[in-house]
């Protein structure tokens, strides 16, 4: 019995090895599936659909993209996790999975995946309704402290960008605000224009057109240096150095494969997406929307993810927004 098993295992191992060898050589031998965590037309979707056609050229194969929404991206993440690690299913996602563990949304996050490319990073910005009685960060904080809980901050639920930025600010000063949750930054920014919320921490790319059109006003950039898109807007890290250590921080977009994917397949995909990130279309789209192209892969990408997760989870934990301590999952303190 035991012997048979060993024999069987040996044959199976050989088969797998052979299979992998053959397979990596002519990868991609069939259509690759790209699973996008967020809906069609959203920022993750736009980024992936812009960069992928250029990556396809290098890859010499077809990547069929599909939106699989729900559970703040957890459904797509679980789906890709359940597939074979053969490089034929890519996970195209944003930053959210790094928070799943502490938010109680399951125990699968990007540590189960190998980053192919961290394409770009968004810069958060604090925007306010035009009628809000403050124009600068200091005026805002002063007003909020004078009127506790009266100022409404738009949010996208626990763990979303607005809640992280709000926690960052609140970690260094008193910030008694009421957070009103919306389905996403789009609806929340709409509510901001209509006055249903007063202030919104949003990603620059989502707010930029409304700022240019004079529909909402920018308070401060949540970064260490001003952006080219809004050169006159002060950066919080410059005006208030106590925050500088947090930055640069922001949402990001990345392409991943499940751990265990053959190294040469990972290498091929990495090369393809690195080329794609250099394409004119992608660079222009990112510049227009105020995103910063990162194009990180390998160890660099891994370090980026580790740092991001450690900073953000602990920040949220200290603000009392998490369900479980990052410590339980061995996430080091920043």
């Amino acid at each position, binding site marked *: 019995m035991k012997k048979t098993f060993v024999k069987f295992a040996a044959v199976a191992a050989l088969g797998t090895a052979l299979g992998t060898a053959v397979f990596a050589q002519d990868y991609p031998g069939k259509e690759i599936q790209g699973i996008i965590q967020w*809906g*069609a*037309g*959203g920022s993750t*979707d*736009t980024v992936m*659909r*812009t960069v992928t*056609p250029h990556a396809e050229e290098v890859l010499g194969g077809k990547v069929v*993209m599909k*939106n699989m*929404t*729900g*559970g*703040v991206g*957890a*459904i797509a993440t*679980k789906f890709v996790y359940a597939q074979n690690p053969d490089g034929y299913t890519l996970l195209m996602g944003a930053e959210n999975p790094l928070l799943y563990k502490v*938010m109680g*949304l*399951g125990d699968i996050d990007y540590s189960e995946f190998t980053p192919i490319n961290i394409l770009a990073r968004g810069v958060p910005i604090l925007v306010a309704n035009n009628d809000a009685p403050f124009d600068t960060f200091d005026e805002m904080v002063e007003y909020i402290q004078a009127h506790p*809980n009266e100022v*409404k901050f738009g949010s996208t*639920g*626990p*763990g979303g960008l607005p809640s992280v930025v709000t926690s960052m600010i609140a970690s260094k000063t008193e910030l008694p605000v*009421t*957070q*009103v*949750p*919306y*389905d996403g930054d*789009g*609806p929340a*920014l*709409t*509510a901001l*224009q*209509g*006055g*249903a*919320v007063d202030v919104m921490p949003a990603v620059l790319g989502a707010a*930029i*057109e*409304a700022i*240019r*059109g*004079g*529909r909402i006003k920018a308070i401060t950039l949540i970064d260490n240096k001003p952006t080219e898109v809004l050169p006159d807007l002060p950066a919080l890290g410059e005006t208030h150095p106590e925050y500088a250590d947090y930055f640069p921080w922001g949402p990001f977009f990345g392409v991943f494969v499940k751990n265990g994917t053959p190294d040469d397949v990972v290498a091929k995909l990495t090369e393809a997406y690195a080329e794609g990130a250099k394409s004119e279309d992608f660079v*222009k*789209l990112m510049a*227009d*929307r105020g995103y910063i192209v990162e194009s990180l892969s390998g160890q660099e990408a891994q370090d980026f993810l580790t740092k991001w997760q450690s900073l953000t989870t602990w920040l949220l934990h200290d603000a009392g927004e998490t369900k479980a301590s990052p410590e339980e999952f061995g996430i080091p303190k920043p």
Partner: protein
Amino acid sequence: MQALEYFLIPWLDLKLLFLVAAGTFAGVYVGAIPGLSVTMAVSILIGFTFTWDVYPALCLMVGIFMGGVYGGSRTAILLNIPGAPSAIATAMDGYPLAQKGLAGEAIGLSTVMSFVGGLIGIVVLAIAAPTVSEFALVFQPRDYMLLAVLGILLVGSLSGESLVKGIFAGSVGLLIGTVGLDPLTAEERFTFGFTGLWGGISFIAVMIGMFGVSEALMQLHHVDKAAVKQKISRIVPNWSSIRRYLPLSLQTSSIGVLIGALPGTGGDIAALMAYDHAKRVTRDPEVPFGQGAKEGLVAPETANNAAVGGAFIPMLTLGIPGDAVTAIMIGALYIHGLNPGPMLMIEQPQMFWFITGALVLANIFMLIFGLTGIRIFTKIVEMPRAVLIPLILLLSIVGAYAVNNSISDVYWMLGFGVLGYFMKSYGYQLGPVILGVILSRLLDENWRRAIISEQDSIAGLFKGMLTSPLSLVLLAAVVLIFVSQTPLWRGVRGKLGLESKP
């Protein structure tokens, strides 16, 4: 005039003209097949038209949108399976008409009325877009909540013989709508630990099961009865009947444009509200509502197509999507290097007029494609039941699967089909269930947002409602409609000597 020049771009370029026509044609059939939605078609097109120029891509999308919203009425009338959520209200009186042998006339009327509604929507878009979008922004969470309550009160007109059963059915719908991760806090609700339930129960699966499968099961009772012979003498409604429904269609189209322009509500809610409005204002319909009243067909069909123009209003003026389809189109504009937002109309005025032009064109093609081929379609209803019932089941299964390519959606659909069959057998109407599912999220989210905004103070919420003119009007409408459905109202009416509605 510059605007006219831009408006005519899709009319004068043969390729663009063809693409609008092709899009509309495809839309009519995508819309007619339950489970294939316009949202899905447009998201597929984003990938497909990636390398195209922006004009041809938009032509195709606009065509699909217009055609698809209309197409949903086809299967609603013929088979009682709404092809799209915006055709749910259409099924309520459209299907009874088909059962009377008037399918051809019903489709003809719905086509012409969709055209009228679509046109009104576009006219409002063209002349009053900035005003309407400013108005749409005034809606606060409490106003959306009141709007949802107003919608829930529709249960009164959808429950058939028993209001209590209607309220029960509506509550079941609301409950179904709450399953999944809480949209505000990502907390699990009624998921019983299954990850598969995180995304909630597919509303389309519920709809197809409740309408399609339960109808097929009902029909099994009289499988030996001969099918209804369809009269196909008159398809295009004559001018006098169009004129008769014109005042009503103006009102319902206005409802459609406004609901369509509100971010967060779309054609489905617009059509249901219009149906309710028609029922309220029609003094003496030739046939009672629910048994094939033409007003019950005119109202939702004008409203859902008017909502198309409405949805473009906030999109083109502010870069805010009016519904799911325009949300995807905004993404498409980004991919094509345009920046949809408040500056779009100033920096790229041609986009506004180009889309308006393409919409008018799509509306015309919708009329043409809608009025041709009706004879062949009505033959579907004449098929023997032994063929028709399996066909309905097949269509339901394919449709439910197509929504998310998920087999569990098919199981849900079948389960709700059986539930719907028993509910029908015991005199429960299914309309309120669907209504509950549609409105569940709108009500849930906005009630909580409203109360969070007032720092959990009920008094503060009421103060807000009473001091804002818009909330006050909505609150008054809620109270009025609620009271008008109680015996108290009938008593008062009787005392005043007012004629009461049948």
